[in-house]
């Protein structure tokens, strides 16, 4: 009996834990709690892409892929616990999908020699790879988003924002506060008046904020929100009849979840993005054949083609390409997290590569280096069509104002290096 139990326990462990030779891409997901609606599509897209690689290509470089999930519920403490518990699986790269968790993991991943990718989130100055050796935030960051939003306004206003009023409605957290400094610098440069309007978590009640906006009559509103804050803000904007085409959300305020509850009132709302939208790509044909039709979809399998599903899939594609790069650099297929870091630092995303992967015109080109862990800061504008119930890309990918952003990144990363006694260097 004891023998039987021991055998069952060993068998259970073999099934539950990833095979050590596999390449492991842990997923710090959140499928429960108040932010689940955003976490689920991202986690599904992330998992489905790896399933596709396993089913279609037999993994990466002949190595099968494992994607163990750990539920963080968008809670920073749980996120750190997840990181610690999954560390033993040999995870090659972590993607927390939470700025709070990212901040906690920065010193940990550096000490553990494990890379972390925080596309479009986290600590913006992590773009400086000389200070943040294990943190990557390509292809764009929060400050890029703020700058591209202002560039869009400049385009609409004939290149002149002097005397214009812009309100920033933001989640009153480390995440929401990220663009303030950039927008302050941009307001000095372009002569617009910036008003900051914070919204406390979770953002279910925003009457004061939108009454203020109604009184101030800004020309544009930029939103850095997440979760229920987005839906309520869009509804409140519609309530005060603020023109939707002058209301621009960051990419975390631009999914179907954010606009559908407001119905027709959300028509024309704009949001930034660092990747394209929809499912009209050859890769989706492969996903259908090898994942969806094979019954291997992650979750309920109902998120395909949504903005956040695409983002999760794109994130998985980026780290897969980094893993391939790492295999090429080190000449081994079973790479370690440290080797994965090298692959991420040498990642080169070209249009030819994206097209070959079945994602033509899906995202910007960029080359990662030790100096630049964040890509080139390209983002585009999307707009919600409430009738068709779909997001449409309405601009090209535009580069952010590097003259403003790069000095800010240098300043912030240098301050971090000083605080933490880090000697900026390339590994």
């Amino acid at each position, binding site marked *: 009996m004891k023998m039987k139990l021991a055998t069952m326990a060993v068998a259970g462990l073999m099934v539950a834990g990833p095979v050590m030779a596999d390449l492991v891409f842990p997923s710090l997901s959140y499928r429960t709690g*108040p932010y*689940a*609606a955003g976490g*689920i599509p991202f986690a599904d897209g992330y998992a489905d892409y790896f399933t596709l690689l396993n089913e279609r290509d037999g993994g990466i470089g002949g190595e099968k892929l494992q994607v163990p999930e750990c539920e963080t519920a968008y809670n920073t403490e749980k996120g750190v616990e997840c990181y610690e518990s999954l560390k033993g699986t040999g995870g090659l790269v972590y993607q927390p999908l939470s700025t709070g968790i990212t901040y906690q993991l920065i010193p940990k991943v550096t000490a553990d020699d494990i890379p972390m990718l925080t596309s479009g989130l986290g600590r913006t100055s992590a773009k400086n790879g000389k200070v943040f050796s294990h943190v990557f935030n390509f292809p764009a960051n929060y400050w890029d988003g703020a700058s591209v939003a202002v560039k869009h306004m400049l385009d609409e206003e004939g290149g002149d924002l002097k005397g214009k009023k812009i309100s920033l409605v933001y989640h009153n957290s480390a995440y929401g506060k990220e663009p303030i400094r950039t927008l302050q610098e941009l307001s000095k440069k372009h002569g617009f008046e910036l008003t900051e309007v914070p919204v406390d978590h979770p953002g*279910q009640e925003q*009457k004061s904020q939108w009454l203020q906006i109604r009184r101030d009559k800004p020309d544009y509103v930029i939103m850095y929100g997440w979760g229920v804050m987005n839906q309520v803000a869009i509804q409140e904007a519609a309530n*005060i009849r603020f023109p939707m085409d002058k209301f621009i959300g960051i990419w975390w305020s631009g999914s179907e979840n954010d606009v559908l*509850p407001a119905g027709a009132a959300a028509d024309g709302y704009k949001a930034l993005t660092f990747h394209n939208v929809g499912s009209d790509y050859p890769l989706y044909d492969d996903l259908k054949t090898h994942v969806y039709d094979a019954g291997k979809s992650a979750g309920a399998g109902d998120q395909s083609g949504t903005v956040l599903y695409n983002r999760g899939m794109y994130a998985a594609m980026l780290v897969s390409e980094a893993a391939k790069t790492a295999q090429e650099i080190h000449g081994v297929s079973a790479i370690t997290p440290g080797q994965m870091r090298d692959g991420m630092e040498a990642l080169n995303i070209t249009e030819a590569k994206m097209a070959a992967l079945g994602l033509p015109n899906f995202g910007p080109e960029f080359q990662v280096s030790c100096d630049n862990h964040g890509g080139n800061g390209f983002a585009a504008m999307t707009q919600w069509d409430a009738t068709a119930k779909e997001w449409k890309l309405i601009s090209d990918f535009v580069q952010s104002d590097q003259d403003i952003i790069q000095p800010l990144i240098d300043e912030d990363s240098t301050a971090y290096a000083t605080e933490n006694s880090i000697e900026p260097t390339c590994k």
Partner: protein
Amino acid sequence: MPEQLAFTIEVFLNGLMAGVLYALVALGFVLIYKASGIFNYAQGVMALFAAMTLVGIQNGQVPFSHLINAIFGTDVHSFGWSVHSGLAIVFTVFVMIALAWMVQKFVFRHLVGQEPIILFMATIGLAYFLEGVADLMWGSEIKSLNVCAAEGACLPQGINMWIDETTFTAFGYGFFIDNLDIVASIVAAILVIGLVAFAQYTKQGRAMRAVADDHQAALSVGVSLNFIWVLVWSLAGFVALVAGIMWGAKSGVQFSLSLIALKALPVLMLGGFTSIPGAIVGGLIIGVGEKLFEFLIGAPFLGGATENWFAYMLALLFLVFRPQGLFGEKIIERV
């Protein structure tokens, strides 16, 4: 009228409206606490569960479809019909009554006579359990909530044009009042009148009050404690449904809806845990207080986003001078 005064009046009115919405959530807490002494941590989740059930029934969604599909390999998600809002509300009320019965039968019946902290912990467990059941039953995606009496006669949203135009003509500044808030205020008024009338003039209501005053004395004269508790949890479920509809119409029905309970706590602290009118008055004071503070002090001098902490600070201030809340019953324990 000076512009600043007009703005202040507008903020005041919107504070009143917001207060009504807070009071709607607080009412559920009061009902259960008054009758059983249980602080129901699950009230916010009950609002979420009720709203999800309503939308699920309206849309003809198959409950537990993900689970069914996973076990049986099927691909069912919808019955293929949609249910009229009125009928869906009736079905949802039945679901909430069934939930009340189950909560009583499987949880609280076994905890009669336990310390209040034990009962409170049980409601914490109930909250997480119910959240999980709601997820399993209806899924976690955000759902649009449209409650309509007839085609084109749905819950209104957006600025009330009549108030806007009238105040503009009178004061030179059009006040913003959300149509949904006006509806919520009317519904809350009807709900409070109904609940008070029920408690005062019906046999069950009087039995409910008797249990609230002294459940052992009520038992001795033949009042069924089980029935009363099921009744009270059912009423709290109905109030949760109303709150879920009003809040869900603003943000869509999603899991963060359960967090509206946080807005009710300062209302309860201020209005008292045992008074239905107290919940309303408390809600109004909190709503107006936090909105005026944000407008006059928070936004101009403190960087804004003061409402969450100010509501609690205001409630604490009241607690210092009147621990039982404005309308709560003073607890005197003689040794």
